[in-house]
Structure formats: C-alpha cells, structure tokens
C-alpha cells in the first residue's frame, strides 16, 4: 500500500507539472504574442472611494494575461455582502437556479469494424460522465474484439475534478481484463491506480495524460491527443494519436518495458445529428521497443494498418 501511494505521488508530479505548463503556456502565449503586456498608463479613476471596498480598488493597473494565471495579491474581493446573510429560503431558490445540478452523458467515440493487415474485428472507445462543472464521475473504456475474443481492452473509473479553466485532474482506477487472444490460455488481468489530466490545450487540441501504478511495481503511462477539423458544419475529420508506455515488462501480457505502442487514426464523420455520426477512416497500430521484440519473437505483426467504419454516438 505504501509503495502504491509512493508510486501515485510520482505519477502525480509530472501531471501536475504538465498542468502548470499548460496554464503557463496560455500565459506566455497571451503575454508575448498578442497582448502588449506592458504596464498600461495609470489612468485617473474618477471614482469617489468611500469605503473599504473601493479602497481595495487601488490595483496596479498592470495588464495581466487574458486567461489562466493567478490573482494578484491585491485583487479585489467578490464579497459585497457587508456581512449580510443570504435569504433563509436560499435552498428553495436553488431548486430554481440549480447551478450545481449533475448532468450525465455518454459518448461512444468509436464503435467500429476494422479490416487490418493482421486481423479483422471490432473496436470501441467510450467515455461517460456524471456530475457538475467541478466534479464528475468519469468512465472510460476502450478495446477491440478479434475472432470473438476481447483484446487489448481496459476500463477506467475516475473522479474528475476541474482544476483550471480547461483542465480536469482525474484520479481513479484502471482494469485491464485478462485475455485469451489466441486460445492458448488466459493472461492475467491487471489493476492500476490512475492519476491524470484531461483538457483542452490551446488551438483546440483535446489531451489526456494518465499515469498508472499497479501491483508488483508496475507502472504505465498513456497520452492521447485528438483534434476535430470541421470541414463543414457536419463533416468532421478527426485525427487521433495514442501512446502507451510501461515501466517494466509484463511478459504474460506480451508487454515490454518502455514505449510499447503508438496508435494513430484519421476518421471522417458526418454528423446527421450531433448525436449520431457515421464515419470511415484509417488507423495504424505500431508496437515499439521491447514490446515489438516480443511480438516479433512470437511471430506476430508489429504494425497493422486498418480500414475502419463505424458510428459515433452521443447521448
């Protein structure tokens, strides 16, 4: 347990640093390229200041970043209550103005059949969430089915928490079920504690970065990036890239340490409605490093190019 916690901490650090970097990126991008980040002339405030609140108005008139960043030490308070309490019926008004109510949604991003050089089958990628703007329960699963056997599947459950305008941290677990890909016996399942970051990077790139810690000192990491290129209002090209890495080899699951595989996809969908979008596309799967060596030794392909066709559904 202690090792698990230590491992989690190690996983947290890079993700947190990443979050910092992303916020800083907004900062730098805004400051250096688009906004003259110079100190604006201190304009006379024609405002009569009669109370403590207005005294706090003496801010330094420095142009800050338009996004992200942190509040200057002398930023004003949002509290204009003079200590007056909210209505005793506040709770009832909340029924009216339900700004923290939870909503749920399921996005089946991929539900497709594929025809590869190595195999034919089906694959899926699903995200589901339930919660408010700040906190959500997040479910995610992906995997494929070849010759009626589930392969390379996992399911994750997170507590997703908003930490910045465009970023959520994700804390949870991942389960990789045992599989019997070639009928030669079932590989063991793997369970992981997971910590990650998910959000929207500048230029509308959707990013996920997750670190995993499992039993017996196993660690893993996954990074996924997606982009939506709108050709028309309904025709959308979606490139996608996913990288997986493992801290140590797991021969029973045919995983070698280091970067294990790279997956790329390019899917062209047509949104009949926002909720229903059939698509066609092409995907590549490429095993790398030690994982590729294991595959080569077992006489399997290390690269597969697949034609895919499926439907994206959103509820």
């Amino acid at each position: 347990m202690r090792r698990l916690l230590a491992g989690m901490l190690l996983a947290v650090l890079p993700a947190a640093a990443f979050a910092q970097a992303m916020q800083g990126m907004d900062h730098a991008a805004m400051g250096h390229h688009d906004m003259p980040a110079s100190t604006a002339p201190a304009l006379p405030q024609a405002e009569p200041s009669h109370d403590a609140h207005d005294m706090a108005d003496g801010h330094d008139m420095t142009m800050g970043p338009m996004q992200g960043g942190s509040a200057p030490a002398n930023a004003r308070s949002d509290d204009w209550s003079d200590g007056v309490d909210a209505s005793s019926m506040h709770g009832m008004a909340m029924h009216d103005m339900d700004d923290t109510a939870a909503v749920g949604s399921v996005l089946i991003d991929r539900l497709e059949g594929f025809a590869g050089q190595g195999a034919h089958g089906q694959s899926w990628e699903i995200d589901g969430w339930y919660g408010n703007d700040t906190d959500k329960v997040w479910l995610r699963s992906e995997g494929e089915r070849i010759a009626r056997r589930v392969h390379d599947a996992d399911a994750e459950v997170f507590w997703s928490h908003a930490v910045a305008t465009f970023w959520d941290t994700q804390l949870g677990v991942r389960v990789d079920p045992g599989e019997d890909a070639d009928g030669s016996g079932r590989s063991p399942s793997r369970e992981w504690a997971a910590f990650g970051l998910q959000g929207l990077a500048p230029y509308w790139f959707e990013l996920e970065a997750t670190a995993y810690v499992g039993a017996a000192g196993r660690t893993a990491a996954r990074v996924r990036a997606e982009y939506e290129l709108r050709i028309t209002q309904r025709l959308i090209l979606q490139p996608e890239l996913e990288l997986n890495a493992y801290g140590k080899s797991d021969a029973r699951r045919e995983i070698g340490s280091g970067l294990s595989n790279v997956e790329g996809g390019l899917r062209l969908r047509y949104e009949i409605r926002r909720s229903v979008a059939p698509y066609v596309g092409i995907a590549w799967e490429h095993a790398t490093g030690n994982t590729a060596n294991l595959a080569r030794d077992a006489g399997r392909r290390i690269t597969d190019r697949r034609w895919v066709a499926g439907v994206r559904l959103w509820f």
Partner: protein
Amino acid sequence: MPIGGRRRFIQGLAIAGIGVGLGFDRAARAMDAMPSIREIAGPAIDLGIGQATVNVTGRNRPAVALNGSVPGPTLRFREGDVATIRVTNSLDTMSSIHWHGLILPADMDGVPGLSFPGIAARGSYTYRFPLRQSGTYWYHAHSRFQEQSGLYGAIVIEPRDGARHACDREHVLLISDWSDEDPESIYAKLRSRSDIYNYGQPTLVDFVRDARAKGFGDAVAMRRMWNRMRMNPTDLADISAATYTYLVNGASPAANWTGEFRPGERVRLRLINGSSNSIFDLCVPGLRLTVIAADGQDVEPVVVDELRLSAGETYDVVVEPTDDRAYTIFAQSIDRSGYARATLAPRVGMVATVPPLDARPRLAMRDMMGAMGEGGDHGPMAMANHARTEYGAGSDMRVDMPRTNLDDPGVGLREREHRVLTYADLRSVGGALDHRTPGRTIELHLTGNMERFAWSFDGVKYSAAKPVHFRQGERLRIRLVNDTMMNHPIHLHGMWSELESPDGAFQVRKHTVNVQPAQQVTYAVTADNPGRWAFHCHMLFHMEAGMFREVVVS
C-alpha cells in the same frame, strides 16, 4: 378552449415550423382562424397556471400555460391603480410569476426563495401592489424552466395622464423562442457540449474562402488568436434555430401574426423580447421606427431603422405606414440562424416580402479584448478590476481594458448602412429619478466558462455566492464588466438601473441592461426598496447556470 383552437390552427401548418419559406400560402389560408392573444383588464385579475399542449412545429408538446394560452394573456392596467392578481397554480410543482420591470414590494416580486415562498403546487397566491409607473412590461415564471415552457405574457400600463405620444392604434409584439425539446434536456445538453446548437462554426470551407479572398497569411492570422485561446468567434447564441422556432405573439413565422392598420395612422408597437435565451434584431422594411420608450420608460424620440432587443428588454416604437400595403416585421436572431416574423397590413391576409437572413456575423477583436481590440483612441478608457475569484476554472477570459462606449450597436449590426439604435441614443424624458451622485461603486464582472457552460458573477456561481448588499437609502453605482464573449442582459429586480454615459452622466432608465462582450457599463441605483431581490442575466440558461445574485436592500 383557446388551446384547442390554437392546436387546430397550427396543425394546419405542420411543415411550416421546419421550413418557414414554404409556409406562406398555408399561412394565408389559415389566417382567418388566427387566434389573438387575449387581453385582460385590471385592476383585479384572476389567472390560472396549468399544463397545456401546444403545437408550434407540427408536434404536440407539453407546455405551461396561463389561462390556457401560450403566451399568457396581455394584462392591461392603469397607472395609479392597485393591481390585485390572484394566481391559482394547478401544476403539481411550485410555480411563480414575476412582473418584469415593475417597481413593487419585495414579497410581490415573485421570485421563490427570496422574499416570496412561491405559489405552491395546487395552491394560490394573491399579488397586490400599487402601479407606480406606466409603459410596456411583461411577466414570466421564475421557477425552474417554466418560462421556457410557455409561462410568460405582456403587461401594458396606461399612463394616468394620457399618453405622451398620441397614436391611432397599438399592437403588442411579444417575441419569444420555442423549442419542442424539453428545456431540461436543452440545459443538460449545453452543459455536456456547449456548442451543440451552433451550426455556424468556423470550418475549413470558410478558411479556404478567406484564404482566397484575403490571402493565406491573413486567413491564418484571423484565426490564430481565437484558436489559441480556445474561443469561438461564432459563439453568438447558445441555442439557435436548430431547435428554436421564434414566435411573435405565439405565432411562428409561417403562422405570420398580423396586426392591422389604416394607411396614414400612427401605430404604436410595443416590442417585448420575452424569449428564454435569444437576442433579436428587429426592423420593418419600408418603415422607420420612432423609439419613444425603452423598458417601459419614455425616452426622447429617436428615429432608427433597426434595433436590437436583448432578452427581457422592451421598446415602444411608432410607425406611420402611409401606403395600402403590407409590411413585414422581421426580427432575426443574433446568430442569424432564424427569425421571428409578423406582418402589419391594412387587411388580414396581405403579406409582404420576408427579407433574407443576414450572413452570420463573427465576433470582432473588440468583443474579445475591449478597448484594446478597437485600435486607436476610442474615448475614455477604463481599467477593469478583476476579483480574485476570477482566476479559477469558472472563468475562461478576463478583459483588462473593457470598452465603455455605448454607441456600438454590437456584433452583426456594425456594418449596417441604415441607422441602428444604440444605448447612446436613449435619453429618458425628465432625467434621473435621483440626482445624488452615487456614493460608492459595486463592481461585478460577468464571467463564464463556455466549454463547461458555467456562468457566474466574478467567477462565483449563485450557489456559492454571498448576497450583494445595498444599504437602504443609498445611491450607488453598479459597474459591470463583461469578461465573456457573449452578450448578457442584466436585470435588477425592484429598482431602476439608471444607465450612465461613459463620462458618468445620466443616460437612460432601464430594468434590463445588455452588456456587450468585453464592454463595461455603469448604472446608478437608488436603494429605496427594502427586501431581497434577484439580480441576474436574462439569458435564462445563463441564470440557471449560476449568473445570478441575491441583492439585499436593508
């Protein structure tokens, strides 16, 4: 039964809601059957809130009706009378009616949870308040999504001493939005994917077009900053005609509500934006509009060709059609996804050409960066003072130097060749009600996170916010800075918002003040009405999502 009549009428136009252009001849045929919104005269009025079925697009949908109609009846009062309105709620849930723009005691204002318990399911409540003003106002539910479901209507209060501008005839034009979708579902969808109703997004096709017209470099430059900031220049309306049908007096464009006139008459149009979440730009091709009142209050007459009606606002305009022909009243939504349409005609059944929708406008740099995006010197500058709570996940941008000019008609109207009304054109007759200089300023920023569909003041949603305290009797200034790229019509209950010009002089008295993207507006308020009041964005889905404050006057 008015609902039955309404259903039969609109079923005849089943296709109309989908393709309004196809519906004109059907509309003409159905015209004789057109129901008009009933008018009920005060001072004593009985109203009943109940479930109803309406058919706007060809499908029967549940709605909340008042006295059996959607919109509810027009209530007509006389200034100086005491209104006694008994409202019976036959719904299984709590309800309420708020009298938008009326200055009345807090327990008569109709916002459940503040100074009023709500109208219990199967219960009733008697509103009783003196009518201390005249003009065009409206009423609507202040409970969950009941306004969105149809519970709203017009109020006309006749001045005690006769109208300032004699007219031969008048028509109330209550413009609203209707969706066959359950508003709960719309809200849930927006919170999962905030751009779901936007079918005017930037595309590769647009990019190629711009690159051809302006060169590749310029086309890239146009997009670079927006994309880096993860902001969408087409984000003009959360909800579009993809789900909304825009109505005039409850009639779809195909149903074509028609108001009659005799050539040569002076006709007063009482324009009300009673929509849930829509902003309209209204014109009557062929007629100039003499604006005589804003938010019910008389203004020095100003002649324009077009005006923007933000949600919750009202304008009274006079038109003087001289020809024996029909005129189209055309109110396109701010995102140009659809329009509300009505007709002024000497005889029912006459129609005029319906103008095409404009091309979809895009937000300009000034809508993102305020005064900095305007370039050059644009009059007095203001430095915004951001709250420390604006630096969290609830806010996706901050404007340091908001623009303060009121003479900008706003996105989509800036390139007009004809005259468009701006707030700078509005001057209340008789000046301010209170000539004291505001003793202090309460600064509140309009904030949001479009990706999360989270809306707030100062980055803090209503559920997490403390009330805003007005000290009873004081004259204070509200300074609103819009740190978002959407328009927000901000409505203060119980007291007037006396809008100031950029140099601090009194401009116009309003109950709903639209704040444009990256704009600052200030207005003075006299805190003379004790109690707990609502203060919120009248984009009702923004209000629902947290852009709401309780104001306490004590």
